[in-house]
């Protein structure tokens, strides 16, 4: 079943065309990669899908619903969660609280019930706490649960962002350069981790990566973006041999090497 489908998605900033005519169709349980040189519009696509930007043209259908132009929190409630390229945690809150915020959108108790600490709310709070601990164990952060999120080392912050996104119970997870700043060992670990959470949480993953070699390893299907335009689409092999991709992306890298 198709979970995400964009049709002619475009985003212009004044005269700058950040993304033009972007089309993608993702099946449930798929892992799709999106690559491209810096400034090619990868993050802009994520920002449009999650509602942070309104598209200039085109439409986004998620899980059979038209979500084009909806508010970010509504889109998250429907089941799209994301992480950020430059990590955005709630730095002064504890690690546990960061994950607990992710549960807030599923809360049933009204503020009134919560402020009085009635049994209905206390039950929900208990449930949220337990779920959050479980998520922290899944990503391996349970031992730092009470620490301030801003004080964690870089790699753990990335994991916490993923845990917070998982707390919103997404069907589709958008990962924006999760491997940025990681060494090869950590990248391999991350690949396993992504596969693991996909299975455990029934996720579809849309992955933006700047590094081509990494994404070739895990994504069966890849889209290549250059200056906002999709220049190639296919399996890693097809991508690697596409002259347009080599020109836009690999060509530059080979000159460097």
């Amino acid at each position: 079943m198709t979970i995400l489908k964009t049709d002619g998605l475009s985003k212009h900033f004044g005269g700058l065309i950040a993304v033009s005519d972007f089309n993608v169709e993702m099946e449930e349980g798929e892992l799709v990669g999106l690559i491209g040189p810096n400034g090619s519009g990868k993050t802009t696509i994520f920002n449009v899908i999650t509602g942070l930007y309104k598209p200039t043209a085109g439409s986004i259908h998620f899980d059979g619903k038209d979500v084009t132009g909806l508010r970010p929190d509504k889109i998250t409630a429907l089941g799209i969660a994301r992480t950020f390229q430059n990590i955005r945690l709630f730095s002064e809150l504890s690690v546990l609280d960061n994950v607990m915020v992710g549960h807030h959108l599923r809360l049933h108790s009204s503020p009134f019930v919560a402020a009085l600490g009635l049994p209905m709310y206390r039950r929900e709070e208990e449930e949220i706490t337990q779920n959050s601990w479980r998520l922290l164990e899944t990503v391996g952060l349970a031992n730092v649960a009470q620490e301030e999120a801003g004080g964690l080392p870089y790699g753990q912050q990335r994991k916490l962002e993923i845990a917070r996104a998982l707390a919103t119970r997404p069907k589709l997870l958008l990962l924006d350069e999760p491997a940025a700043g990681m060494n090869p060992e950590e990248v391999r670990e991350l690949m396993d981790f992504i596969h693991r959470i996909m299975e455990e949480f029934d996720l579809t993953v849309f992955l933006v990566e700047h590094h081509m070699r990494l994404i070739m390893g895990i994504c069966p299907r890849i889209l290549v973006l250059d200056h906002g335009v999709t220049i190639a689409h296919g399996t890693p092999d097809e991508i690697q041999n596409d002259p347009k991709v080599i020109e836009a992306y690999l060509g530059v890298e080979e000159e460097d090497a």
Partner: protein
Amino acid sequence: MRKGTSRILTAISLLVLFLFLWWAEENLDPYLRRILNLIAINIIWVVTFNLIYGYTGQFSLGHAGFIAIGAYVTALLTLPPAQKEQSFFLSPCIWPLSVIQWPFLPSLILGALLAGVFGVLIGIPSLQLRGDYMALVTLGFAEVIRVINMNLQSITNGSLGLKGIPEYTNLFWSWGCAIFTIFVVWMLGNSSYGRAFKAIREDEIAAETTGVSIFYHKLMAFAIAALLTGVGGGLFANLISTIDPNLFSFLLSYQVVTILVLGGVGSITGNVLASIMYVSLFELLRPIDQPMTFGSITLPGRPGMRMVMFSIIFLLVILFYRRGLMGSNEFSWRWLLSKLQPIFKRKRQEDDHSKD
């Protein structure tokens, strides 16, 4: 330490506070009682501001406006008709306001509700803005409320103000409302909603994509704060018994901001401590306004000198305690007991030694 133990300790300290207030109400002179009342009222104002700024991160300078609405509504409803007829000599008070006189509690509630409604009305446009713009717009709204109060001659009696408001506010009213406010803000702040507020303060974009509806939560914090601030305003009017529009100028909003920063942004414990300090200090520094004699030199009295002194103290606190007295830490029994333990232990050891 278990949850039950700290609940019992809290209950005991509330009982002690109640007994103290009871004693104070009977035995203290009116001046000291008034200071205690003012402390409680300031606690209400600052704790609600903490909900807006400390937790949700929205810098509002409109507190005086909400205080004014609570004060005027409660005052007008409790003011006896005869007093209204006497005070409104420029233009008579409009019907039905001219004939009604309500008891204190319903007046206080209506005042709070109206302040809450204004909180929503002012919040809807101003919460769309960020940072400094939000502060400017709320400051503007509070000034608009002041100017309206100044000009609605037949409702608020304009710049003549209201006199002879029944002095219903006593220590039980003021401290009861203060404790209620602390309870509500504390419970909300430590609930899932509180986490959502703090998430907005930390990073709006991340909060939004984590499923927190930014506007709804900002407005909620703003409305609840405005409502409870209105209660404080009503208590204030029925404490000092004379109000006029200029009492609720931007200086009052600054006072609230000052106390919050002194105590520590985001700490209710800090709010309470700083309110106590601010009000007490303000009274203790009163002699500075009077003429002083040092030996043969006589300094003439300068009203406002204590504000200068106050500014210096404020500067010193900001210099040495950048994050206020408490930072964003809260008091807990566990903390207190861990501080007390070494003292007891040492004493016990000394006792043991003396036995040898």
